[in-house]
């Protein structure tokens, strides 16, 4: 008698748990299914159409994809985006780790330095890029500093026009974003560092390991979750470069399409040429690239990092 009562109590508890569970996720899941999953398939659908300002005109199959992959400007946009991501992610991650190690040591004023280093990360990209364009102008502050250190800017190969020279524009933006993003990356590493037990390191040092050995063989492996997080989120963010490119290079990513990125290209296809089907196809290609790179990283870091387990 008693045991069956207990049983039914459990059952109802389980039932109510199921009900509450579905209740809690119903709106969020509906939104996900609608705003991400549904939209995803709608994008694929649109990408097979010739779709202008007034709507779809004809189904063109995979023509939009063929056209994209044979457009030199789009290929340049892919190259720029990949080049940007492959350079900016290691730089900002390394810089972030370096800064984290600096402020993690128990020193005076570490709180101040931590705030100072994170500072560039909090301003909007519109604000900071605008500021950057101002500082990097041919007669701006940056060139003024170079002059102070004895570098004659007018004799440089680009005459000090960092953002309006196709050979330096993308690298300038890489510098800008490595600087702004490294603050966020520093926080990720800091969080991880603070959970890493210092006794491992101390033990290693007592065993006679050098500081360099401790860093490479103890600290770095223990930071694996942070590495994964920083590289994955960094890569996804980097492949979506848009704000800085349009602010510095305009809609054409001038000069010489050196700041044309995949996202800027989508924007142009949409709002300059009104080719919504084509723009959708580019979006799908972008997704495929991001997706494959994320999977690739998962393999590199191992699947445990994926779930955030140490």
């Amino acid at each position: 008698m008693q045991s069956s009562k207990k049983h039914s109590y459990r059952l109802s508890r389980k039932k109510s748990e199921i009900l509450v569970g579905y209740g809690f996720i119903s709106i969020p899941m509906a939104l996900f299914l609608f705003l991400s999953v549904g939209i995803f398939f709608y994008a694929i659908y649109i990408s097979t159409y010739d779709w202008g300002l007034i709507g779809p005109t004809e189904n063109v199959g995979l023509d939009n994809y063929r056209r994209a992959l044979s457009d030199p400007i789009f290929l340049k946009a892919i190259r720029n985006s990949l080049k940007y991501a492959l350079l900016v992610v290691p730089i900002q991650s390394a810089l972030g780790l370096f800064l984290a190690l600096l402020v993690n040591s128990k020193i005076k004023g570490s709180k101040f330095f931590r705030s100072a280093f994170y500072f560039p990360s909090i301003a909007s990209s519109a604000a900071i890029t605008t500021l950057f364009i101002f500082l990097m102008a041919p007669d701006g502050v940056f060139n003024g500093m170079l002059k102070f250190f004895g570098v004659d800017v007018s004799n440089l190969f680009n005459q000090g026009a960092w953002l309006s020279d196709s050979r330096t524009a993308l690298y300038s933006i890489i510098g800008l974003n490595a600087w702004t993003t490294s603050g966020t990356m520093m926080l990720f590493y800091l969080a991880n560092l603070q959970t890493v037990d210092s006794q491992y390191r101390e033990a290693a040092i007592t065993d006679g390991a050098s500081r360099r050995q401790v860093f490479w063989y103890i600290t770095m492996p223990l930071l694996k979750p942070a590495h994964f997080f920083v590289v994955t989120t960094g890569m996804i963010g980097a492949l979506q470069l848009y704000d800085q490119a349009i602010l510095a290079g305009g809609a054409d990513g001038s000069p010489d399409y050196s700041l044309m990125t995949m996202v800027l290209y989508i924007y142009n296809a949409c709002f300059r040429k009104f080719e919504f089907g084509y723009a959708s196809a580019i979006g799908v290609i972008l997704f495929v690239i991001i997706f494959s790179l994320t999977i690739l990283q998962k393999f590199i870091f191992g699947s445990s990092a994926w779930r955030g387990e140490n």
Partner: protein
Amino acid sequence: MKKISIGAGLLALALAISVAPSSVAADAVTTISVSTWGSSPSETSALKDAVATFESRNPTIKVNLIVDNDHGAQMAARFASKTPNDVFYLDAGIAQDWAAQGVLLDLMPAITAAKFNLTKFNASYLKPFQSGTKLFGLPKDANPLVLEGNTTLMAAAGIKTLPKTTAEFAAHAKKLMAQNITPMCVDADINRLGAYFVAFGGGLASSTNKSLLSSATSKAGLEWAMSNYKSGAFKTPAQLSAGWAGEAFGKAKCAYTMEGAWLDPYLKDSFPDVYDAMIKGPLPKAKQAGSLAFTAAYAIGKDSPNPKEAWTFIEYMTGARGMTVWTSYGVAIPSRSDVSIPLGYEVNGVVAKLATTITTPAFKGWGDVVGAFNNEAKKQIQDKNFNAKKAAAAIIAAAEAAWPKG
């Protein structure tokens, strides 16, 4: 659950706040929205004044002016959502693209009904907006490129008058550079350098929209421009840390520039000293005097909510009276023959009437040509050691490759 109600409350509050002002308007008044671009705050205020004269004559129509930053993109977004403004600026270069998308309203029926006289408009200003028997915009004004000179800087190099020929320009450039003054600020843009294609006897596009870029004469014009960039006689605004050539000119970073009448109100506002020291004349002649003229129209969208009131607005603004008010601010010169050119803009008027002043091409895909030309041009001149002939050839090749087929 409290949070949800807070969120809902916030939302309701916001809706209430934002609804409030629009519901105040009196019944009989229709508000039309007019979207424009503006190159300077003073140009915008000139437009506001002109619009005010319209409103005082048409008390039942109120005008809500919107100045877009990226007019083309913002209009595209509005077309796609079927919410275009009642009236909007229509750039000649993009008119055919938009017309082909079927988003513009044909103005011919309204023109016929109102017995609006089209013959007063210069035919070359109407052409960009025509498609068969349809007309998708009425040119609001025109603007040829002229040469502006800063007499203070010219005097510093012992120069008294503007260069009339390319040879004279070369002589001036030498004198100015000896004084460390940049002779001319001009962007490496087909919408500026194209004037020299014309001056050397070439052009941009034929009447059937075939490319004229590869002709020997056009090439000669571009090579001349490129050699000026190489010698330092030309500098781009970016090289002078300016957003556009007018700004470099206003900051006295160059003795000459080549802009249209839109430069005047900008200088008057921001750089009054340079404005007072400015003189104007035709661009330096090579084989002939050449220039490019720009025009833009007022247009109505197919989905614009108030086409009737919109037409009333356009009829006034592109009519003799409205155009007189608008052009009296010196932002542009009239596109109608029955409106006189305002005092101080005679040079612009003369240049506009020159047989060799061409309006910029307007056909579907012209924007791609402009993009390809400008990108390649900026790339070519960024290296100090470029070869003017090779650079010109590369730029023309890039523009030709982008030229729409067929």
